[in-house]
């Protein structure tokens, strides 16, 4: 089985891995880089639990091949906290109860970070429109919307 070498900057660190060319980004991150925080919920681009930022843009980890992001800058939610101290956005998620089972949380955080960094006006409706590709089955979205709006009001970008 021919393996392809892929290299990327993951959360600020250089990572190299060897995997078959049809390996999706989410599986590469989990198997080659042990980024277990990135989850795989459907493997067809629908649920959003595998969302990561590639060069700052929200990207579906299971419908993007790892080889396609060779040389790119990839960010997962592991880059948000400062050691064990939650980032401003994570702190809001904690306050409003926006993480119940937590399986959608990583992808939700990264889509929200893309919105916070976009400079657009962050209203509840804008958050719902930007995050509708990130499904959640536990919270009913209200706590997540409240958290992102509150983080935006404090100028948070992570």
């Amino acid at each position, binding site marked *: 089985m021919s393996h392809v070498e892929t290299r990327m900057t993951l959360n600020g660190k250089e990572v190299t891995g060897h995997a078959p060319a049809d390996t999706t980004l989410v599986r590469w991150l989990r198997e080659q880089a042990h980024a277990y925080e990135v989850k795989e919920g459907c493997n*067809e*681009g*629908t649920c959003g639990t595998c969302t990561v930022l590639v060069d700052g843009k929200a990207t*579906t980890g299971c*419908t993007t091949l790892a080889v396609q992001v060779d040389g790119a800058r990839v960010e997962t939610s592991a880059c948000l906290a400062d050691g064990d101290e939650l980032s401003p956005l994570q702190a809001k998620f904690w306050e409003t109860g926006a993480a119940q089972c937590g399986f959608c949380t990583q992808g939700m955080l990264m889509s929200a970070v893309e919105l916070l960094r976009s400079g657009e006006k962050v209203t509840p409706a804008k958050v719902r429109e930007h995050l509708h590709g990130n499904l959640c089955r536990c919270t009913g979205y209200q706590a997540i919307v409240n958290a992102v709006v509150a983080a935006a009001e404090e100028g948070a970008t992570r």
Partner: protein
Amino acid sequence: MRIDNQFVVPATPERAWEFLTDLGRVAPCVPGATVESADGESLTGRVALRIGPMNMTYTGEAKFVVKDDANKVATIEVGGRDRRGGGTVKAKIKASLTEVPDGTQVNLSTDLGLTGRVAQLGQGPINDVSSKLMRQFADSLAAQIDRPAPAPGSAPAPAAPVAEAEPINLLDSSLLPKKQLAGAAAGLVALVVAFLLGRSVGRRGAR
């Protein structure tokens, strides 16, 4: 899924019956078919189909379960498996001939059973593709039927050489299948069955 169809060929019922009951000669009319072995009664082979990025290869066999020369009524059973994708196809085709002024009308009525991921996700447009494929099969059958049969008494034509048929890409037929869209009943079915993925599986439109 039940699909009925009819078409007229410019040949006598006897000539049409003789052609139709020789699977070795009928099979090559099937778009995308590759015959591996065939005697008049049954045949084994592969049908490769490419629809957009999807490609399925069904390996299986077809055989006569009813062949009533007197009334010119026959039933063919088809079974095949996609050894990569894991889906299966089963079809029971009842064929009958009726003489008409300008030749013979071939009546086909098929019960089609599809399983596997293709059938599950592709229900929507399966009807559309069946009609397109059948039109090609019917045209090809009609063209073949009135070509002279091999001289009687000579050795039965050897099974068609194992030519790798180019998997057909269903592009050439440009007829907008207006009527065929109305439902399975309006379509035609041939030996092969059509499988098409309906809604693309991926997210909205190509990305």
